[in-house]
């Protein structure tokens, strides 16, 4: 009972938002599109889990959205060149794993502030194909491959449930889960204690990047295209979800519950804003508020 109380207390804002949304849906203010909600939820949760994992290990990742865009463009180019779709999906996974590995290696090796470093990576990733694709977009099919495919939605949801369970197990029952928190809380102490921080950081970033590759594949197949703007839509939303999920930056704190609740809250908010027609008007303000929120979280952890 005590635990439940604490849980509700911790996520009261999220619960309030979801509650209002459900209430409004029942009153008929919003049209609840279940499949659309599910699709958004799937993508958001995967991304939130990935970013949260990185954040728990002490790295604030601003490059994940660009990483998604880069992988969608790469895959779309390959499909256009005649490669089968499943091979392109494997390429996306492989590319993300390499990028994750690189991120982990460079962040630990160079010991740069992760915000600046990932911001630089973001710029690089977004502009890699700017010379090749004048519109920064490539369509590989006129027909939307996965549009309205409910079996695929169910499959991704099943994968998400497995991921959430796996993540829970990872954080609580594996050495790497514990190391992830240790790196986030006090990397210096972890290094002094003799842990191989670079290897651990690389593994964590690879796992996180694999989580990014699933939404990247989904988005590419939903839209049958690759674009530099594809991931950009999710950047601040995912960061908001991470903040709302109570994931600590540089203190190693956070839980899988928080990640899922954070994603749920943001998707609900998006649905509400879309339903009221305010999404485009308030999106940029929302992004600014979220950055402030993130900085505030960082300051609090420092203090």
């Amino acid at each position, binding site marked *: 009972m005590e635990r439940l109380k604490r849980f509700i207390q911790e996520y009261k804002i999220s619960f309030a938002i979801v509650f209002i949304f459900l209430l409004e849906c029942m009153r008929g203010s919003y049209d609840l599109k279940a499949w659309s909600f599910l699709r958004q939820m799937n993508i958001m949760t995967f991304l939130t889990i990935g970013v949260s994992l990185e954040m728990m290990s002490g790295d604030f990742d601003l490059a994940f959205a660009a990483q998604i865009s880069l992988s969608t463009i790469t895959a779309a180019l390959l499909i256009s060149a005649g490669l089968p779709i499943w091979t392109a999906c494997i390429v996306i996974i492989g590319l993300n794993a390499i990028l994750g590995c690189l991120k982990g290696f460079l962040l630990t090796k160079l010991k740069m502030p992760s915000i600046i470093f990932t911001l630089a990576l973001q710029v690089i990733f977004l502009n890699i194909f700017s010379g090749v694709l004048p519109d920064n977009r490539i369509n590989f099919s006129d027909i939307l491959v996965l549009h309205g495919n409910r079996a695929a939605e169910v499959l991704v949801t099943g994968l998400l449930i497995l991921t959430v369970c796996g993540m829970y197990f990872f954080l609580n*029952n*594996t*050495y*790497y889960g*514990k*190391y992830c*928190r*240790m790196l*986030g*809380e*006090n990397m210096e*102490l*972890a290094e*002094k*204690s*003799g*842990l*191989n921080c670079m*290897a*651990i950081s690389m593994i964590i970033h690879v796992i996180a990047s694999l989580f990014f590759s699933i939404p990247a594949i989904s988005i590419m197949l939903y839209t049958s295209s690759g674009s530099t703007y594809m991931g950009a839509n999710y950047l601040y939303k995912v960061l908001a979800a991470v903040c709302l999920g109570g994931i600590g930056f540089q*203190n*190693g*704190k956070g839980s899988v519950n928080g990640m899922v609740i954070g994603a749920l809250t943001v998707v609900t908010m998006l649905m509400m804003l879309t339903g009221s027609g305010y999404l485009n008007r308030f999106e940029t303000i929302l992004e600014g508020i979220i950055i402030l929120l993130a900085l505030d979280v960082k300051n609090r952890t420092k203090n």
Partner: protein
Amino acid sequence: MRKEFMRFTNLYIKNSHYERLEQLNVIFRKGESYLLWGNDHTGHVFTDIFRGEARITSGNIWLNDQEIFECSREIFHQEKIFYIDSYTEFMYTLDLAENLFLLKRNNLKKLFINQKAIHMQAKEMLEQYNLPFNGWEKTETLSTVDKVFLNIIRSVDQGAQMLVMNNLSAICNQQDMKKLKELLTQIRKEEVAFLIYDSHPENFTDIVDIVFLVNKGRIEKKLYEKSEFYLCNKIMNETIRNITEITSKIVKKHAEVMEEESYDLSCDFEGKEIQFSIFRGEILYLAIQHGQEQSVLWKSLKSYGNRKELISSGIRFWGEDNLNTEIFPNLSIKDNILLPTVKKINKLGFYKSRERFIFQDKEFFEENKFITEKNNFTDSNMMKTIFYRWKLFHPKVLVLNNILSRADVEMKEWILKRLLELTERKTSIILLESAAEDAMKIADRVIMIKSKNTMKDLQG
């Protein structure tokens, strides 16, 4: 006989605050405990070695039969020598048992944690050392002393060879101190050595095997008898008194020797013989009225007597006329510095193995930048190279002709510093200088050579 695992031989170290410890000759054996006892606080520099805050200026550290060249915490950590002070960190995201078992080197092959095993092991360990904690406990609420106790048993669990403890009494009340001593006594039985530095060393005399009396950056005495440990203060004071007496005697004797030790030199000038003497470590300025006469005197000094004799008696000449010829442009700057000393470094000429120690010695060699520049023999680099050469070679008398006047303002300052360093090493310097002002500034004595060989000796 206990097995030796670490040895300091003639070790000189300096910490980040430029505090020094000199002439350390210590052997550490397994299961032995050592206490640093000092009236001043320089003993803590000793613990800085293991904290990774000290730098070796000369001497050697042998650790498990291998020489180590830097004092880094990681190296000692790898050899199971752990440094413990009152600032002990724990991970708050982990519970106590996890903190005990996860904060250590791991080969990363293990994936799953057996939480039950970890907590059982922690329980067993805490019971073994009589520590009233629970493995599931959160570490945020632990006091500093508790963290130190846990850190000690964590280190022992990791197979510690030696624990280096720095001023732990500062955080202990009487009860905690009793507990700490009990814990250390128990650990001693497990063949773990420890080295203690503390501002209240008397607290630990009953649990140590050897006491090092440290004073002004030196180990003055080593006490091996337990009965002596209780008299440490008295012995220390006596030792210091003796040392002061001995030192003052040495200083006095040295001063007398200095007064006595001088070199008599002579040369032909304008058809007559000039004789003068120079003391060890003195800078003598031979002032002369006209530039032309100075060059005559310089040549006469150089050519006086047999050149071989001059060289064997340790007299060297360096002037503006042979500024460039002293340098071998095909050799590196390092080799140019080492050249005349090569035989001294190694009789067979294998000087390269010792080269590193010479250039790492910050006492001798302040600048690393210019030696790494490949054969960049600019004027200032040439001067630097040759000055370091003399400093290393350490001649008895060095005669310099117009070196100061060849240098710019910045270089002049640099040369003056180096000249003083040379004299500290007891090299006598004779200056023949047209830049009289600069020479006067640094000279201990001036001999005026007027025309027609009238000489005047000016002191001060």
